[in-house]
């Protein structure tokens, strides 16, 4: 098929058309994606506050300051905590759910798919305000139930550690459905006969999951794994900004929110730029690591 397609662009006019069709997208991406990327790299070597007419060149100073600031490590630690929770809830859990829905349960598939997807069309600001009220430690429904059971609810938005768990849960409420649907597509692609054969042989469900389903739907799994890391951290931004503003004492800030705060609250433009670039570098390292080890493990292990 590929050879047949060659020659389509034989005439110059066709070539022109081919590039012309991509041009609008390229212009938008050029101005609002690639130029900003390079400009942020440029800004990261300057001391600036977005308003002053003069930017002072400071070399690597922003990067050095970044690695010397203890706050950086707090934020990094928080980010890892967010990632851990988000990956379990939005990567592992939907995988298990997709498996159960495809191969264990016989009825209600399409109902569950529609229903689980539903919250993912609702604004995270709505989600944040709803859960803020439901989990309000004094007057919310959760507090009332907890009181009946004799357990006092902690003021979670002021409790380090717990605040990350709750904000991750709120984010999960939105992200879960989408991830679940995409993973379902991958899991449902595993041939049914293989699973049926294994079940007739009384292979336990967890073995079917780990030995058959997981390896055979690996590509989709990796895609969701990466997307959970890259987009999950950015989704968490909304509940952080709306509910805690990074508090208490930066205990709920993550890499994304911290850059926002440095850039738009404190006007440390150069420092924020350096931090953004380091964040992106971490994402890239993560992706390379991911591709190198996880993917290899899935495809070539057996």
């Amino acid at each position, binding site marked *: 098929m590929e050879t*047949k397609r060659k*020659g389509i*662009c034989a005439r110059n006019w066709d070539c022109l*058309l081919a590039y012309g*069709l*991509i041009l*609008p*997208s*390229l212009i*938008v*991406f050029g*101005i*609002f994606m690639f130029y*900003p990327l390079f*400009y*942020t790299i440029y800004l990261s070597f300057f001391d600036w506050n*977005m308003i002053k007419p003069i930017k002072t060149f400071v070399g690597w100073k922003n990067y050095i300051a970044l690695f010397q600031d203890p706050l950086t490590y707090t934020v990094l630690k928080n980010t890892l905590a967010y990632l851990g929770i988000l990956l379990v809830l939005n990567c592992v859990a939907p995988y298990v*759910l997709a498996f*159960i*829905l495809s191969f*264990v*349960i016989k009825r*209600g598939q399409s109902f569950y*798919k529609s229903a*689980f*997807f*539903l*919250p993912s*069309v*609702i*604004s995270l*600001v*709505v989600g944040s*305000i*709803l859960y803020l*009220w*439901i989990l309000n430690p004094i007057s*919310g*429904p959760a507090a009332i139930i907890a009181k009946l059971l004799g357990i006092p609810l902690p003021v979670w938005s002021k409790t380090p550690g717990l605040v990350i768990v709750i904000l991750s849960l709120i984010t999960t409420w939105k992200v879960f459905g*989408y991830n679940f*649907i*995409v*993973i379902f*597509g991958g899991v449902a*692609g595993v041939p049914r006969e293989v699973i049926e054969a294994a079940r007739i042989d009384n292979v336990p469900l967890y073995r079917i999951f780990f030995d058959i389903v997981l390896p055979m739907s690996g*590509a*989709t799994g990796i*895609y*969701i794994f990466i997307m959970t890391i890259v987009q999950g*951290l950015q989704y968490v931004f*909304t509940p952080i*900004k*709306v509910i805690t503003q990074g508090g208490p004492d930066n205990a709920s800030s993550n890499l994304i929110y911290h*850059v926002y705060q440095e*850039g*738009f609250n404190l006007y440390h433009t150069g420092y924020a*730029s350096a931090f*953004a670039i380091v964040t992106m570098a971490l*994402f*890239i390292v993560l992706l390379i690591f991911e591709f190198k080890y996880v993917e290899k493990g899935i495809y070539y292990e057996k």
Partner: protein
Amino acid sequence: MKNKQEYQWHILLCLALFFSLLPIVFAISNSFKDLSEAYNNIFNLIPQYPTLNNYIQVFSQLPFVSIVTNTFLIAATVTIFKIITGIMAAYSFVYFDFKGKNVLYFILISTIFIPFTVTMIPNYLTVSQLGFRNHILGVILPQLSDATGIFLIRQAMRTIPYSLIEAARLEGAKHLKILWDIVLPLVKPAVVSTGIMFFINSWNEYVWPVLVLKDKVNYTLPLALQLFISSEGGTDFTVAMAVSVVTMIIPLVLYLIFQRYIIQTFTSSGVKG
């Protein structure tokens, strides 16, 4: 024995669903209660004394008509442009061979991995220089094209048998005609569901508008909603629920109408091979 096991799974799944859908039911029910009933009768899902007061309050507390108009205008414009630029680019990537095609595609798609913190400062400066800070155009401009859209529409176009296109080409059909008469009708489900998702995402968007829009008159719904949040849940709690309901009603209705398309498109969007 197998039936019993299935039964247990159903209970577990329904429990999970209960917790994920409960907040939505709560919001709708409390938006029709007055404040004292909402506090005293939290678990009453059907209000004892239903009232529209909260919805009326919304109009007196906020420039509500312009907020809804802004939200709609931004979402509609962004969606239309993302779909048009997406169809154009996808058509080119699928049906033309040209120098640098794969590299170009890779570069466009890899932008999905650029965190927004990397682009937000320069984009804020660009939008300010153009004079669109505090204007809905400032929200719209950076979003006229979208890598996910190109990806999803390209995936759909690739499933069309190439012989169909070739036959039309042999009969001398122009590209525009092929796109309009053959390709578009076949990728319609994917285009519609991608468009609906763009609209919903833009409707719900928070991060970029909160940087660009400063005055309440220019706000979108999620920004307006944020005004009702304080760490204690806010005193105008029932009004906040009314704004929440207005914010989520459009996405919910769109989803309920197009859910088949949407579920199908995203189920098959996973990377294969």
